[in-house]
């Protein structure tokens, strides 16, 4: 029985009269790959923001890796984020003036200290050992996303949270990235992935479907 790394209880987010996320109860076990799906405006992104501590809920409780997040100060939330969560974005969000290697090292720097060897290893992991000194603008979309994944992994987070990781990629690159995620899953990493690509969701252990801020299906 794997331990529960993430648990939400009646997690709710309201903006005035709008409620993008309404009373979500969810548990994610260690090593699970959860896909969150739903149409636009169903609250997928809001949910991911809450789960990755970029935003705080209006109501409800969110326990990450055994830590209740409701009482944390902003400083502590930042600390939890940099140690327990690895983020992968649809837009990659690499710093444009830093090379692939330096982008990975940036995550190390904010976590603790830089270690070039570790960063190189992480890039090797995603098959980019020959592209380390290239700027993001010199990399293809797939390569950029792989740098982004390497950056997400570098601090060995408890959970990887990905937001439409293949949304901006062509088919060939999508395949490469998907393979990477599969590999991560095989290694036993916990993955939460927001997507509206059913092909991607097929590989997930579990698909959570959101509609109007509510879970309509969890299987």
């Amino acid at each position: 029985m794997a331990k529960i790394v993430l648990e939400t209880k009646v997690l709710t987010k309201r903006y005035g009269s709008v409620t993008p996320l309404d009373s979500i109860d969810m548990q994610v076990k260690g090593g699970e790959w959860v896909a969150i799906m739903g149409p636009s405006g169903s609250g997928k992104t809001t949910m991911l923001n809450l789960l990755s501590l970029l935003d705080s809920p209006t109501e409800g409780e969110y326990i990450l890796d055994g830590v209740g997040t409701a009482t944390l100060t902003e400083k502590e939330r930042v600390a939890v984020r940099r140690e327990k969560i690895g983020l992968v974005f649809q837009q990659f969000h690499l710093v444009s003036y830093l090379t692939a290697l330096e982008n990975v090292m940036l995550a190390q720097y904010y976590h603790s200290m830089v270690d070039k060897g570790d960063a190189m290893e992480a890039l090797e992991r995603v098959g980019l050992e020959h592209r380390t000194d290239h700027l993001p603008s010199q990399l293809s979309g797939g390569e950029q996303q792989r740098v982004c994944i390497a950056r997400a992994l570098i601090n060995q987070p408890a959970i990887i949270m990905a937001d439409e990781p293949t949304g901006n990629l062509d088919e060939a690159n999508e395949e490469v990235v998907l393979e990477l995620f599969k590999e991560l899953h095989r290694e036993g990493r916990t993955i939460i992935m927001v997507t509206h690509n059913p092909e991607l969701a097929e590989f997930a252990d579990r698909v959570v479907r959101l509609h109007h801020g509510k879970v309509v299906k969890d299987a």
Partner: protein
Amino acid sequence: MLPYLVNFINAFIPLSLAAGMVIALISSLRGGKGYRSLFVAIACGVLAGAVVYPVAFRHESLTSARAILHGAALVAAVLNAGALFIPAGRFAAIGRCAALIFMAALSAASGFSFAAFVAEQSISSTAVLNTELIVNIGGFLAALFVTASLIPMTVCMGGKCGRGTVAAALLLVSLLLAAQWSADILLALMRLEMVELTSARVSVVAKAGKYARLLPYVEALVLASLSLVFFLKRTVIPADELAAMDKAERRKARSGLVTEKRRLKCAVASVLVVLGILLYHDLYASRPPKISKPLNLKPDSEGMIRVKIDDLSDGNLHRYSHVTDDGHVVRFFLINRSGGRKVGVVYDACMLCGDMGYIQEKNEVICIACNVRIFVPSIGKAGGCNPIPLAHKVENGYVVVAAEELDKGAKYFSEVVTVKVKDPVSGKEMISRDAPQKYEFKGRTYYFESEETLEKFKVEPEKFVGEKESRYFRVQGYQGA
């Protein structure tokens, strides 16, 4: 620049150390929150001290203002020291309060002493913006930076040393300050004639004043010893433990070690900077100029001292000395005063300023005591701050000075060495320092082996020492042009 730098550091180093230690103590109690009130107390204290000075100056009550400030600081220090003995956790509010009061009082004393320094010397010689003014302000800002950076250093170092060590260090600093303040209060009370002036009290005050110069050094060393404790208690992670960690975990552990090391380095560096500045100032920059060592000359058989004029052609100041029979060291110097072979022959002493002497800097001859430049061609003439002329003769290329003449000038000089002397009555030889009796006659000191010979001498001195002219006295003074 340097005086501002050094005096600021001198005035504020105890404050920044004490503040750092108090913060370290408080944060060990309360998890590092809420020392804003502490900084408010410090700011208010410094401001108050700086305001009290001009007000007291205007009312001509500097002494009492100083004494009152120091008295308040003394009481606060004692209170705070007492509060340190309250066990941790209990009555934390009392400890906090005492610390706040202590900080405020200490800052007021510091602010006052620096304000006094600033008022005593002009920050600029003219009202128009000039380099000196800017450099002085720069010195002030640099000192502000150095002393302010000592606070976080002390907090860092103290935070790891444990409550006991920090409390002990704080007690030590308070004790030193308290001793200083008490001496100051005693001095003020004597000045205000509120307590009687006794020699014991004066010597206490004098001793305290003497050691006050060392206080900043001791305080810097307190920080150094905190750093040492920090070093001894540093985190050590064994290599195998480190190797067993996850990559991210290992990096985190290593970064902790690096941060600790960096803090230690910073603290040591700032101690070194402070010590360096203080030492440079005290040992080198602030020392008054010193006279060159005189060449001791012995008179020849005729009682004459001869110096070759050609030796003086370099235009430098040539300083000589002669020891009289009773041990007075008489200094005199010769200088070629006008390109040619005209020589100024003078005692190395000034009628006005005494025997500090004259130095030569490049082409100028300067009276050390009053910093006045002497017009070199006028050396050898009396008046103003010129060196006292010395009677001499010039004979075939030699300046000839009679030892007898030098002896007459012995009273211009205060330096006395131990020499072999003779009892003028019995003729017994002895060491001047050990002579049981001495007696001054016509400005000369005579030494006697017993009261008996002294009494004999007193009856008719001329019989034993002959009809010598008496020595010159400085009070005979200005002999006109």
